[in-house]
């Protein structure tokens, strides 16, 4: 392969570029990114970045994912502020548009790393309504939050919504979170932990309204949002609205490319698509049926996908248990593994009613996931065991792990016979 084009210049794209060079690819490396900024890190954007009076301690330079020295070493051709608009898998070209000219770049291999973009509410755009994905989004939101004392309504109680609401509360702003489900964070944490975490907002003066959707945003004819109308008819006054209702994988440019798209670019556990020499990584990739939206997956998957790209077939699979963290209301939440709907949740350390705690999800004698609120040290120990324990290691109570292929298999690949592992059941306190 003489030319590889990485589309998407953020976390996963940069890691793919690094991996290509680390694997000895010495051909032409082209990186195409729609944003005008060099790769930067997103997680602080909903956290420390928002709470600082502009300009604060955390600025774009502090969020950068690589320095100039590393960039020089990558010897890549950067096309920033440039959007890929089409991929021709037969002719091996990527069409790019920088707003002035449309060009067609010839390439041998392609790494798709276009991430995801926020979902928006239907209706015309209104001033005062924000989403939070990019540095530019965060910058605009921060400027608005620090202008007077806006009444904030956050739509969506997921991680972005919760972190943004918590940052607004830290700024002393009146905040209401609207969540359509009966409880926030159920898909991410499972019902038991979601219930335990549900009183965090109230303890920090944030009003949480669950079980009701949003009917419309009202502007009173001014073009600027004035209120949020809920599905149950209630009207919430709002000077500023943050819409955190999830993201859509950025696959629009791949329509007609012949790649299978189904809530992301469909690929195997090694990031390999059905089209030769095209791999997908990060938030945009649906690997072996699962699409993750976590920082660590986006940073880890590219090493595997790039090996496969250079080998021309799947020689490696990314199988590390998923991991994410979230900082909200002064609490650091961390979860590793794949909690399943029927899992039993057991608190193994601390007390949820009184500060931090550590919990494990268990199913049929297997530990499927580990969760911590402000317990980084023991969490780390269990997370490592989840990833590294050899087959057949003892379960949490000292009993042997469930046999391979036990009913928990649907939720935790480490329990499945196909993966060759049995469950990794950490022993708390070991």
């Amino acid at each position, binding site marked *: 392969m003489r030319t590889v084009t990485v589309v998407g210049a953020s976390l996963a794209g940069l890691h793919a570029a690094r991996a290509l060079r680390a694997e000895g690819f010495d051909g032409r490396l082209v990186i195409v990114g729609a944003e005008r900024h*060099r790769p930067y890190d997103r*997680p602080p954007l909903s956290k*420390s970045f928002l709470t600082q009076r502009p300009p604060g301690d955390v600025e774009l*330079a502090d969020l950068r994912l690589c*320095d100039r020295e590393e960039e020089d070493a990558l010897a890549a051709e950067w096309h920033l502020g440039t959007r890929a608009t089409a991929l021709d898998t037969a002719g091996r070209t990527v069409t790019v548009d920088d707003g002035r000219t449309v060009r067609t770049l010839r390439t041998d291999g392609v790494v798709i790393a276009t991430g995801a973009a926020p979902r928006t509410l239907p209706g015309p755009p209104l001033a005062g309504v924000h989403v939070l994905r990019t540095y530019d989004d965060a910058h605009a939101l921060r400027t608005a939050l620090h202008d007077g004392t806006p009444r904030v309504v956050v739509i969506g109680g997921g991680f972005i919504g919760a972190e943004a609401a918590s940052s607004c509360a830290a700024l002393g702003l009146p905040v209401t979170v609207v969540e359509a489900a009966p409880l926030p964070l159920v898909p991410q944490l499972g019902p038991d932990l979601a219930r335990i975490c549900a009183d965090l907002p109230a303890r920090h003066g944030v009003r949480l309204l669950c079980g009701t959707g949003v009917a419309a945003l009202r502007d009173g004819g001014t073009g600027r949002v004035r209120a949020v109308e809920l599905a149950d008819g209630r009207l919430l006054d709002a000077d500023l609205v943050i819409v955190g209702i999830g993201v859509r994988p950025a696959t629009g440019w791949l329509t007609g490319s012949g790649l299978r798209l189904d809530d992301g670019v469909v690929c195997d556990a090694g990031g390999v698509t059905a089209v030769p020499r095209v791999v997908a990584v990060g938030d945009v990739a649906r690997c072996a049926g699962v699409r993750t939206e976590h920082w*660590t997956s986006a940073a880890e998957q590219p090493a595997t996908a790039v090996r496969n790209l250079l080998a021309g077939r799947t020689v490696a699979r990314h199988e590390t248990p998923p991991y994410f963290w979230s900082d909200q209301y002064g609490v650091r939440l961390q979860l590793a593994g794949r909690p399943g709907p029927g899992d039993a949740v057991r608190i193994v350390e601390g007390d949820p009613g009184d500060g931090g705690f550590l919990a494990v999800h268990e199913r049929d004698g297997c530990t499927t996931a580990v969760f911590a609120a402000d317990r*980084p040290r023991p969490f*780390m120990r269990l997370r*490592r065991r989840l990833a590294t324990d050899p087959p057949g290691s003892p379960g949490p109570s000292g009993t042997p792990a469930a046999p391979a292929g036990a009913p928990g298999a649907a939720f935790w690949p480490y329990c499945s016979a196909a993966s060759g592992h049995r469950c990794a059941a950490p022993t708390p306190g070991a």
Partner: protein
Amino acid sequence: MIPVCRTEDLPEGGAVRIEIDATTPAIAVFRSEGALYALDDRCSHQDASLSEGWVEGCQVECPLHAALFDLRTGVPSCLPARRPVRTHEVTEADGMIHVRPAARENTVREDAYA
């Protein structure tokens, strides 16, 4: 020298975090394979406390994104951390552990070219 804790309060593989004053960054003191090490507690990547990290040999792994730091030099050996953390002098005598915080250098900020 600033007292950290008594010898028995820092067992093998353990870490202690000390706050000195409002202007001095917190320091983490580790004991690994018999030796003592003192580093700035805050990870040079983002907001995590290295005293909560995983210590193995002469390395500590950050509890948030798994960057590894050399306990002897404070230099990261893998991403996502790119800058070293400061190291401090640490001594153990008469059943007590002490640190001498390193003089604070001006942190040089790379030119912003983003």
